[in-house]
């Protein structure tokens, strides 16, 4: 049986409400994938889901980590935060539903498309949440 192991992991810390640095991690992920000569369409999908995940970490979480795991046949983006959890996942997954503040909306976010976009652009999408943190895993097949 072929053991599918991680070939490379890129990990980043994402700070809550740090809008100055928001997007830097995803930009770095995209640059690294381009250097690995990954197909541009795959790179674009990974960039979108990681950026949405990163922005969600900044806007909604108390802080967390963003990982990009590269396998031979897939790329997995993992968002792992330290809270406060999502009250209603079904609502949060609904396009247009947002709990963003007016400050966040002035920055161009809070349209309620983050989680739906993450799911849309992934081949597999998993989310687990509790008050102590939310773990999201998005797989894009190569």
């Amino acid at each position: 049986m072929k053991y599918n192991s991680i070939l490379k992991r890129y990990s980043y810390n994402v700070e809550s409400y740090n809008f100055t640095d928001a997007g830097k991690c995803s930009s770095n992920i995209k640059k690294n994938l381009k250097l690995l000569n990954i197909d541009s369409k795959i790179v674009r999908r990974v960039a979108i889901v990681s950026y949405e995940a990163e922005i969600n970490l900044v806007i909604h979480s108390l802080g967390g980590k963003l990982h990009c795991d590269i396998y031979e046949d897939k790329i997995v983006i993992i968002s792992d935060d330290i809270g406060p959890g999502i009250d209603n996942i079904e609502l949060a997954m609904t396009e247009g539903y947002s709990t963003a503040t007016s400050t966040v909306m002035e920055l161009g976010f809070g349209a309620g498309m983050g989680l739906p976009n993450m799911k849309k652009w992934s081949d597999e999408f998993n989310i687990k949440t509790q008050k102590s943190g939310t773990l999201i895993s998005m797989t894009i097949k190569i």
Partner: protein
Amino acid sequence: MKVTDFINILNAECVTKFICDGKDYAYAFASDLMSDVLALADSSTVLITGLNNPQAIRTAEMMDISLIIMVRGKTPSKEIIELAIESDITILTTHHIMFEACGLLYKNGLRALAYEV
């Protein structure tokens, strides 16, 4: 439509001092909501926006968008311009409001990207 066409039609200024001429843009997406851009735009699209912050550049970078038109007379900061140049993105600024800018471009042949709702 080339970058120089946008400049002429909108009486726009290129603030990045970097013209990626040669590329022909056929489609546009106008929005101040970056998650909508992430849901619907692609690399063939010009982004028309009034959002004057680094996240407009980051969003364009993620979508491989190479041309941003900032409307309503917005002037991007040095930080935003540097980020755009670093990401090979051209920024044009125009005094037209978004509605007017879109109308002028549509009149001259630019179209909306096809999308599913």
